């Protein structure tokens, strides 16, 4: 009988699970020792997606990562969606559950993107209340992920790191630190990425994300990086990851590659690079 209880993610590499890698993950996982799935892709009633996930969940710790809850939304959380998350978590018994600091639903319209919000005392209270509701419904603590930012709200009164610290303190949630998002946001808003890591409450970090981004520039000629998850992690992000590990210690680290998904050896090579960085801490 397999041990099917994974209470936490190990401090080793994981990857975002793609069905085309199913057989190779089972046969040649390399250093990949846990998997993350987007919750919304496993909210059907049955069929292959849930069968594959059930099989994998008996062999790997699973991280359930929501992309559609709209925790930063002005309106109430979608009760049906909370119930679906609960059903999925009860079924998979994930080692970790996480969602984004973002909104995606307004007036019953779901926009399928992680949209930004201003950082104020009002939004701290709203996001913290939503997270408490999520944690009560799903029955477990969640991790909240920092976003990729492309613009700034003039009404914001605090930094993103202050905002995340206050939300985590008020709600009791942990944090998911996406190092690529830090690099993207810092470049786009002309801030110091290492200063962001220095200010981040790393003791609350339960997971790290790494992924690829695209490069563009805005109408003023300033660099504009776009979080695409469609290519390798770039060297400056690996360097920022090393810097983060030196401050935070080893943490479960996910390679995200969601568009133009590569073959398994290419994705596994990214995980091997993360494994080497983790081993060097």
């Amino acid at each position, binding site marked *: 009988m397999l041990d099917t209880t994974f209470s936490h993610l190990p401090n080793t590499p994981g990857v975002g699970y793609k069905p085309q890698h199913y057989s190779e993950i089972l046969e040649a996982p390399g250093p990949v020792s846990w998997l993350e799935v987007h919750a*919304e*892709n496993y*909210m*059907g*009633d*049955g*069929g*292959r*997606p849930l*069968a594959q996930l059930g099989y994998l969940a008996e062999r790997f710790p699973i991280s359930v990562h929501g*992309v*559609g*809850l*709209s925790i930063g*939304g*002005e*309106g109430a959380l*979608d009760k*049906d*969606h909370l119930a679906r998350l609960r059903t999925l978590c009860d079924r998979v018994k994930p080692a970790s559950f996480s969602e984004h600091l973002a*909104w*995606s*639903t*307004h*007036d*019953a*319209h*779901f*926009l*399928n*993107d992680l*949209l*930004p*919000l*201003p950082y*104020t005392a009002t939004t701290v209270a709203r996001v913290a209340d939503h997270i408490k509701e999520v944690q009560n419904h799903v029955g477990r603590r969640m991790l909240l992920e920092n976003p990729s930012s*492309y*613009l*700034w*709200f*003039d*009404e914001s009164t605090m930094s993103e790191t202050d905002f995340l610290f206050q939300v985590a303190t008020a709600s009791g949630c942990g944090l998911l630190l996406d190092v690529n998002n830090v690099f993207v946001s810092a470049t*786009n*808003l*002309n*801030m110091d990425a290492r200063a962001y890591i220095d200010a981040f409450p790393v003791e609350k970090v339960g997971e790290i994300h790494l992924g690829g981004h695209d490069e*563009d520039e*805005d*109408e*003023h000629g*300033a660099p*504009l990086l*776009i979080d695409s998850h469609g290519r390798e992690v770039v060297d400056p992000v690996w360097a920022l990851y090393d810097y983060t590990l030196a401050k935070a210690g080893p943490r479960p680290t996910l390679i995200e590659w969601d568009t133009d998904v590569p073959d398994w050896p290419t994705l596994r090579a990214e995980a091997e690079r993360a494994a080497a960085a983790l081993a060097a801490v």
Partner: protein
Amino acid sequence: MGVSQSDLTSAILAPDADVPAGLSDGHGKTAGKRFDVYRNNVAVSLTEALVTAFPTIYSLVGDQFFRAMAGVYLRQHPPSSPLMMFYGAEMPAFLETFEPAKGLPYLPDAARVDLALRHAYHAADTTPIAADAVQIAPEDLMASRVELAPAVQVIASAYPIHGIWSLARGGSKPPAAAQDVLISRPAFDPEIDLLPPNGAAFLTALVNNATIEEALDTSSLDPASGFGPLLGLALQRGIFTRLH
């Protein structure tokens, strides 16, 4: 007073609208192209979701037409749920009145087929009745009713919809005849099968709780040349979960 999510939603879905006030690059400069990142993410991700949802339509009309059509659809019908696997439910009705598709009147039925196949892929797992469950006295079989698996859908069309589906996958030219199809999911992969004449009416009667005899009567399915092969297909595809 800051920018509301209502304002942001409207501006994201309207490509030519002004960028809402109160957004910048963090250093006093306008956020025009920065806001366009969100507009683009939303339009591209929803378009890709529709490409995934409607492979038959995509193949029939081509990439350029499909993306232009998707751009209109996603603004008229943004998703109402975060479950992208079910996005596009209004596509058949949308295509009925979408002017540029007027010359392709079979597209709504092709969209129904795509939706039914997607639905079948994610439908609940069920156990079909065994093939020998129908090896009972003929009068008992005729008096029986059935329950169908949740993956099953019957699509009746005025167009050669099975041939059109096949054409979109490299098949030959469809016949000039109306066709009805059965969508099912024997294991993990959905199947689409051509139904015999009156087969759709027969299965629809069964769905509506008729006995097999009543369904034969109302549908005019040929008891010999129609019923036997259709029963065989139904058992092969595992569409019955109960016979009683």
